[in-house]
């Protein structure tokens, strides 16, 4: 277990390094740069700026310099705003993470409950209602859903205020983020639960005299969770980093927003910072979900 974890962590570091290298060289290979504007700026100013950001050196050297600073914990300064990249990432990630963890929790709890319910009441009306809505939420793209939520509950009904930094109301953004994964988890749980409920060991449990609730929650759910866990790992990383679309629709300055504006501005330090941060998050979430996998399914052995 420990050996496996250490191996996985080392592999993760390699993965992240490769991602960083590819991003760095690809970013530099694209014509133009942070200070290339439609209106040419004064060559002298440009030269100073490029020297300040090491852009005058060969790309290989720039990469080594970046790595050296990175190793010291220095992500650099944004070429656009002049602020520390790390500060921007961490403050915006705080918002994205808060939003994301609420969304994940909602999606997970609702998905598991609704999925189990649909499986247990298969063919009856609750099942049909649940399946109708989950199909809807899986099919409708999030930018339409987010806009619709905003239009109906904020604009027409006025139940929830529009997001603002000073008075953030999380309900609608969380819903917009959570509905798709919730619907997906519901469907996953339902099919997995149905599969498990037809297994012989469920009949064994009933034949032992186990209470129906325990048959479901002890004997069935844990087995049914196995496929769900696989999905939840990457999902967590995806949601925690902030869904760009939802953040844009609700005008939330989360990490997703900075990621995309960084790319638009050719803000090299910002692009590198956010990419490495997201990659690290993604890799560690996958690792955690793999370890969690082991915890619920004894058949999975490492080494």
């Amino acid at each position, binding site marked *: 277990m420990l050996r496996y974890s250490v191996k996985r962590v080392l592999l993760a570091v390699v993965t992240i390094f490769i991602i960083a290298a590819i991003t760095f060289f690809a970013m530099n290979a694209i014509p133009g740069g942070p200070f290339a504007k439609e209106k040419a700026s004064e060559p002298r100013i440009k030269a100073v700026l490029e020297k300040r950001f090491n852009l005058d050196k060969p790309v290989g050297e720039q990469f080594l310099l970046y790595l050296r600073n990175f190793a010291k914990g220095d992500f650099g300064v944004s070429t656009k705003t002049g602020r520390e990249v790390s500060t921007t990432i961490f403050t915006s990630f705080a918002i994205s993470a808060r939003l994301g963890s609420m969304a994940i929790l909602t999606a997970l709890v609702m998905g598991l409950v609704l999925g189990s319910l649909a499986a247990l009441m298969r063919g009856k009306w609750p099942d049909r209602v649940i399946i109708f809505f989950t199909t809807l939420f899986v099919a409708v793209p999030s930018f339409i859903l987010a806009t619709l939520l905003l239009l109906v509950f904020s604009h027409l009904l006025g139940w929830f205020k529009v997001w603002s930094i000073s008075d953030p109301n999380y309900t609608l953004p969380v819903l917009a983020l959570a509905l798709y994964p919730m619907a997906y988890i519901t469907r996953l749980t339902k099919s997995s639960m149905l599969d498990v409920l037809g297994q*012989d*060991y469920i009949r*064994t449990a009933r*034949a*032992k*005299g186990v209470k129906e609730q325990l048959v479901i929650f002890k004997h069935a759910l844990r087995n049914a969770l196995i496929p769900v866990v696989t999905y939840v790992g990457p999902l967590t990383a995806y949601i925690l980093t902030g869904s760009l679309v939802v953040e844009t629709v609700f005008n939330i300055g989360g990490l997703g927003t900075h990621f995309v504006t960084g790319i638009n501005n050719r803000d090299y330090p910002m692009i590198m910072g956010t990419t490495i941060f997201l990659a690290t998050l993604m890799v560690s979430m996958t690792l955690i979900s793999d370890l969690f996998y082991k915890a619920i*399914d004894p*058949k999975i052995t490492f080494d």
Partner: protein
Amino acid sequence: MSQSPLLQVRNLHTIFPTESGEVRAVNGINFSLARGKVLGIVGESGSGKSVTAYSILRILDNPGKITQGSVLFEEEDLVRLSPGEMRHVRGAKISIIFQDPMTSLNPVYTVGNQLSEAIRLHTRRNRQQARARALEMLTLVGVNEPEKRLKQYPYQLSGGMRQRVMIAMALACEPDILIADEPTTALDVTIQAQILELMQDLKEKLGMAIIMITHDLGVIAEMCDEIIVMYAGRVCERGTAEEIFYNPRHEYTKGLLRSIPKLETGKGRLMPIGGSPVDLLNLPEGCAFAARCDSAMKICLREQPEELRINEHHLASCWLNVKNQMEGGQEHG
């Protein structure tokens, strides 16, 4: 025989409603089981053996349900018990082991966990006591290194070992009846013999009654005090093992016996029963076996035969017996 039997199944009917109609799996079964006896239920796939067993314990798969009849256990009708009361019967008074030990244990819990669960459900033992009892049971069913097995998961055990664990789990609360639903079908032959021997042995030690369900007459020949032959959810013949084997009086039973390979007459071909099992969605009016029966008469297609007593230890439901008896009667009269 004055004492009332331990278990009495009376006119039991079980159906599975489906979109294309009612699958009538069990159609009026009657039998009784005395304390400490072994009853064999024989029949091919789909004859209603397992459904009968699941009906007794009320663990039918959805949407199966009992529509008629009663299951009297110690003079209490199990069909009419509340779900809560029924739970105290399952595993405590009547236990069951299943056909496929590979899939009958929960893969995500240890053997010890699953054994202790069964024990703690029906007795007042605490965690340590339940563990001790689990260990004792594993030793009793001949599992080697029982201490180690308690901590293992089902996937770490062989098929024969898992069936032993299932038996240990079923017998942990000292039930009055053990239902064995084709306990050896999924195992290879040497393990089959070991498991049957184990069951025989445990019956002597613990004194429970056994209902042995199988499609293999050879399996139950030695063990059973009484044998029921089932076809299309009905009993077609019943009697002592000796009567069924040496004096079969139903064409279906004869067919089953012909399809057993015999070592002595090794060169002869096996005689399978022709045709396919009856469609339980559309049961015929007459004898369900008539369509596959070489000796079928007109009446067989029209009317169901009643059970007719052949002798003190033997009953059969076949019109041929009625015919023979009438002819015999005429000759004598």
